[in-house]
C-alpha cells in the first residue's frame, strides 16, 4: 500500500466515526446517560438546569 493510499484510508476511517452518547429515560422521569459528550451535557443540562453536576459538565469548555 502506498503512503498516499494509507493516508486516505486513515482519513476515511476517521470520518466514519462519530461521537455516540446513550440516554435512558425511565418511567418515573429520571434520565440516565453514559458516554456523555460535551454537546450531550449541554442538552441534559438544559433538561434539568437544577442539576448542578450536569451544569458543571456542560460548562466544560470544548
Amino acid at each position: 500500500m502506498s503512503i498516499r493510499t494509507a493516508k486516505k484510508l486513515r482519513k476515511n476511517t476517521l470520518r466514519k466515526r462519530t461521537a455516540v452518547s446513550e440516554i435512558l429515560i425511565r418511567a418515573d422521569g429520571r434520565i440516565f446517560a453514559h458516554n456523555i459528550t460535551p454537546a450531550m451535557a449541554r442538552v441534559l443540562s438544559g433538561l434539568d438546569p437544577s442539576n448542578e453536576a450536569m451544569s458543571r459538565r456542560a460548562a466544560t469548555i470544548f
Partner: protein
Amino acid sequence: MTGIAPPIRPPAQRLRPTVARERAPQAYALLADCRLCAHDCGVNRLAGKTGLCHAGTAARFFSAQTEVSDELELIPTFAIALSGCDLRCDFCITGASSWNVRAGGSLDAVTMAALARTALRNGARTIMVLGGEPTIHLPAALELVSFLPSTAKLIWKTNAHGSASARDLLDGLFDVWVADFKFGNDDCARRLARVSDYTRIVGENLLWANTHSRLIVRHLLMPGHTDCCWRPIAEWLAAHLPGVKVNLRAGFWPAWQAQRHTEFRSPLETSEEDRAFRWARELDLNLIA
C-alpha cells in the same frame, strides 16, 4: 498502608513514550503464556489460542471520543474504549462491545494518537484508555502510549483485575488510575461477573495503584447490593485506603443482561442511595464527583 496520596516518583515525562515503546514488545511476548489478568489462563495467544476474554493479538476499539461523563477533575477526556473484557458483568453498560473482542474498528496506534492530539488541541485535558478492559490489550495500549505526547495526562481506567506482571509493565506510564471496585464479596462477584477470588485481587491492585499512581476508586451502586457490596467496600476503603478519592455512582442502568437477575429489574431505591452515601460520610470517605 496509608491512603494519603504519596509523592509520585519523578515523572520522567520525556521518557514515557520511550519506556512504553520498550515495554510493548515485552508485553507482546507475554501473550505466549497469557497471564495479563488474574484469570491466569496461560494460553498462547500468539498461537491463536484464547482464554476467557477471547482476545487474540490485535486490539480493536469501539469508541474514541471526547467525553465529560468522568470525574470532574479529569474532564473533558478523550476516551479510547478497547473492545473485549476479562470480566462478564451481566449489567455491563457497554456489554455488547465489552464482551466482544471483535467489536468496533481495528486499533491503529498512530491514527489513534493523532486523534488524541487533535482532541487535546481542542480542549481535552486528559486521555483515558479503557475498555472493556484495557489490560487484556496491554501490548496495544503500550504501543499507543508510545505515540502519545509525553506531556499528556494519561488515565488508565481498569476493572482492577490485572496481574502483577501487567502492573509491572504499566508502572509509571499513567498519571491516574481509575479503578472499579464493583463487588463487596466473592459470591456476588461470581454470580454477577463470573469471576472468583475477586475481592482479594481487586484489593491487591488498588493498594498497588495507590502507591504507584494517583488513584480514584469507583463503585456503581447496584439495586439490592448496597448492604452486601457497597458496605464492605466502603469499610475496606476506610481501613486500607483512607483518604483515597472515591466516586460513588448512583446511575445504575439495567443494561445488557441485567434482567437475568431479579434484583436488577427494579431501579436503585432512593433509600438505598441515601443509605450508601450516609455510610460513606460516616466512614469519612473522600467522595468526589
